[in-house]
């Protein structure tokens, strides 16, 4: 690389950075100013809280705050950093295979990562991931696990029978479109015939893809992603955006495009124009799980969302999980072991932990900082995380509206959010005066970096001013019925499978263990943020350690 080009590259990075800083400055400054001006109070008199992942711990990592010198030194055979689903899954696998000497470090004061949940007087509710679908029938590892936690109760003719209390109760989904709530989320009510035709065509197409295998005998799109076909012509789809792909295919119906855009926002937190065509199709063509007692691809959910599954995992690992423990530095020791420096913000004590192996089940934007002392040729900037706002709304009674009654999933056509779920759906009580609804807003109108900083700078009242007007569109006069709203901001909510990401060399490198000492397990290494990927990432890393030890 000549000095000249290097200089140019530096300059362009510099300019890019400047324009980025400018836009961030303008947006966050605007929000801040607006916050100062509207100190006179939001016009909505609603109480609640504004929360998110431990910002203080994140700050320590990012800004290299000076921490106390380590006063404790101890040894653990295997360390796992992060107790989201991938970390817990790795720990479960180690435990299942007789390993006892391991520790899971979690910087929050609770395990769970994205599957965290909350509870108030009315109900438990998710603050992140809130459902899984029936497992693909070739996914033996997942099926074993679901059986272990009684999500699958038994098998009928080798087909899993799912726990009736966990399969989403009817009524399941409704869409507010053209002034009425219709059954299901695929636009239908008041949709012109031509659009319906395109929708039908698209669904038939993805349904065909779903059941198609590549030349290597693998499904084109599968879960986990790593088990998908390697056929080049499909992997090429990762190099264009879903939007471009749909244009090329001639899909023009605004209703169809809305639906696909909704799907991308729902699963990836970004719009059609950001998501790769491969990932866009994966959403529709990868789930083919059959159940003995439900339709294909049926949804399983709990009042606390995936928090319920997380509790099943964490429950058996209690002695191994260390919460409020921030791992902020990892070094290779001369004896070939790992030295992890961890800090407990509650006790203000820093520890050095020597481990034989370590699994980083933390996301790559964290790993980037943890491994700052190791030279890695990985471009972390390709990891793009979608920020989200989750609002848990305690409500007395939803106003009457036209069409289908309250469902588990309630989506409104052409709104910024992806709707809300009713956390009381799986309650068995016949009559409840109050309920908690969980409203999901992907912050995808700006670049994630900008949207994230904007989200961090908003105060409670400003979130009310964003969320309530949309709720009022969906349910006029809902505001009076709201008792409480708790906001949760996920700065790095989920990995976005942007183009050239899932099947990139960079991601492959990021997945590769370092010197058979440091292993990686996080759904961002799959490229999509779903329970199944995290679950398999965890097992894969645990297996790498167990196999390497033999």
């Amino acid at each position, binding site marked *: 690389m000549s000095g000249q080009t290097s200089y140019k590259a530096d300059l362009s990075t510099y300019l890019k950075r400047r324009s980025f800083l400018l836009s961030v400055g303008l947006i966050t400054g605007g929000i801040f100013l607006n916050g100062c001006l509207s100190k006179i109070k939001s016009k909505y008199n609603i109480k609640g809280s504004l929360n998110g992942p431990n910002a203080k711990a994140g700050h320590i990592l990012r800004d290299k705050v000076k921490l106390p010198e380590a006063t404790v030194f101890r040894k653990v055979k295997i360390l796992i950093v992060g107790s989201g689903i991938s970390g817990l899954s790795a720990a479960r696998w180690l435990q299942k295979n007789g390993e006892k000497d391991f520790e899971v470090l979690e910087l929050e004061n609770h395990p769970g990562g994205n599957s965290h949940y909350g509870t108030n007087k009315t109900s438990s509710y998710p603050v992140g991931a809130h459902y899984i679908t029936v497992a693909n029938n070739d996914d033996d590892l997942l099926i074993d696990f679901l059986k272990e936690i009684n999500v699958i109760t038994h098998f009928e003719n080798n087909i899993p029978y799912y726990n*009736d209390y966990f399969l989403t*109760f*009817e*009524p399941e989904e409704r869409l507010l479109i053209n002034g009425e709530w219709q059954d299901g989320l695929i636009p239908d009510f008041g949709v012109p015939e031509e659009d319906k035709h395109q929708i039908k065509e698209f669904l038939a197409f993805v349904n065909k893809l779903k059941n198609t295998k590549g030349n290597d005998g693998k499904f084109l799109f599968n879960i986990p992603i790593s088990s998908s076909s390697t056929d080049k012509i499909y992997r090429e789809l990762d190099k264009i955006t879903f939007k471009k792909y749909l244009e090329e295919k001639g899909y023009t119906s605004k209703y169809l495009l809305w639906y696909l855009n909704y799907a991308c926002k729902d699963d990836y937190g970004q719009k059609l124009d950001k998501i790769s065509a491969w990932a866009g199709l994966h959403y529709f063509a990868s789930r083919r799980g059959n159940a003995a*007692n439900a339709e294909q691809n049926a949804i399983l959910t709990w009042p606390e969302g995936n928090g319920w599954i997380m509790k099943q995992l964490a429950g058996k690992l209690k002695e191994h999980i260390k919460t409020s423990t921030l791992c902020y530095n990892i070094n290779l020791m001369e004896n070939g072991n790992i030295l992890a420096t961890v800090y407990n913000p509650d006790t203000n004590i820093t520890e050095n932990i020597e481990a034989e192996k370590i699994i980083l089940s933390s996301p790559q934007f964290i790993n980037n900082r943890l491994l700052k002392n190791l030279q890695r040729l990985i471009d972390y900037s390709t990891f793009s995380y979608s920020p989200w706002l989750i609002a848990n709304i305690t409500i007395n009674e939803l106003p009457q509206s036209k069409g289908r*009654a309250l469902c588990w999933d309630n989506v409104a056509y052409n709104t910024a959010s992806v709707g809300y779920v009713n956390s009381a759906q799986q309650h068995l009580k*016949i009559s409840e*005066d109050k309920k908690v609804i969980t409203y999901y807003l992907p912050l995808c109108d700006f670049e994630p970096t900008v949207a994230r900083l904007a989200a961090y700078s908003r105060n409670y009242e400003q979130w009310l001013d964003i969320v309530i007007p949309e709720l009022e569109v969906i349910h006029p006069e809902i505001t009076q019925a709201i008792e409480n709203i708790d906001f949760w901001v996920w700065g790095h909510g989920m990995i976005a499978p942007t183009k050239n990401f899932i099947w990139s060399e960079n991601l492959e490198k990021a997945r590769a263990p370092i010197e058979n000492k440091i292993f990686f397990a996080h759904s961002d290494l799959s490229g999509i943020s779903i329970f199944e990927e995290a679950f398999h990432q965890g097992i894969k890393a645990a297996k790498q350690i167990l196999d390497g030890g033999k």
Partner: protein
Amino acid sequence: MNKKLPALLLISVFVVATCGLIYELIAGTLASYLLGDSVTQFSTIIGVYLFSMGIGSWISKYFEKNILSWFIQIEILVGLVGGFSSTVLFLVFESIASFRIVLYGFVSLTGILVGLEIPLLMRILKDRYEFKDLVSKVFTFDYIGALLASLIFPLLLIPHLGLVKTAYMFGMLNVAVALIVCVSFKKEIRASKYLQSTSILSIIILLIGFVYADKITSFSESQTYSDTIIYSKSTPYQRIILTKKNKVLRLFLNGNLQFSSDDEYRYHEALVHPGLQALPYAKHVLVMGGGDGLAVREILKYPNIDSITLVDLDKGMTGLFQSNKMLLDINKNALLSKKVKVINADAFSWIKAQHKKFDFIVIDFPDPSNYAVGKLYTNSFYKLVKGILSPRGLMVVQSTSPYVAPKSFWTVNKTLESVGLKTIPYHNYVPSFGEWGYIIATEPENPYKKPQNYIPGLKFVSKESVDLMLFFPKDMAKVETEVNKLNNQILVKYFEDEWANVL
């Protein structure tokens, strides 16, 4: 003195007479609605009322000074007492013990106050007319007022305003008289300002009552029921309405008829006896739903039963059927029996926590017209019921109409079968409901044996009638359906479709 004033006082005689009679009629009507037996009620109310008027007349001699001012105060008081009478009576109706006391207390109080009015008026007017003119004029207006009241009450007021609003309206008229008299005679009255403001305040209070009367008995609601609403209450779970026409009581929950007192025996006998008569060894019975205690009444006819557990969501419902005299007459005090334990709980959550087994289980839930109730008709629920059914026991499920809603009926049957129970569907005709269906379910190893005879005293069920009930004619024949599950709630969809054609 202004010549117009005596005329004004005579008009007030007329209004006062009308109001007085209206209050009496309201009390009589309410008593016959709520307590039944209109001849007795009207007769005792009129007697007590007239007697109280006599007391009032007698007391009137103790009023010596400021008679005009007393008259105005009494008017205001009559207006308030009469205006609120029907509201208070409706509200205390639930606790039957005190109801009669409150009722006759009201009647006496109004009677005494009304009884005071005419003598006082006559004394006010005594210097302005000759005695014979006075008597003739006062009583003429009095009786005309009475005639008017007795005509407009049944013809205009009850059909268009309802009892509660009528009471408030005449209360306001009463006080209005007080106000007008007070203003017209202000020079002759001490503290007329005070009396004026009291009457204005009273009118406002009565007006508020009038406006909010719908909260007590909604007028619009009364329009939707062909019979007279004698009781209504919104509990956290449902709206309970009791109506009465002639001697027939009907209970509606959220607008759906639950029973009609003239033919409910057909339903409850059919629900209980074909099953329970087949279980001579049955000791412990569970009733789910059925907070009216009518199924329990039938079950209590078997001396071999030791305990009956009734699980009903709504305390408002079971409480009503444990305390109201009229309703206790219908369920024969069933819910007060020592053998009966009433539990107010959500059936699904309750049964999930149950381990005790029952020999006979009656499932008498409302029809599956919404997803909430629909959960109680799913395979998941029946699995739990099966879990607490003793091996030789038997359960019976009210299963909507196999004639109007065959798919719904046979879905319940299919769902029961899907959890490994053997079913015996049957049906009978209940005039208020039409053709109605029930399903008995047992463990397959202990199939249902048809009883050869039944306990005495039943009006409908017998060996012969049960044979007929077990036969399904072609128009109600079995249809193939899916199993109703929490994750499909297919029954609610069928039920909606099938009943939509009827309602």
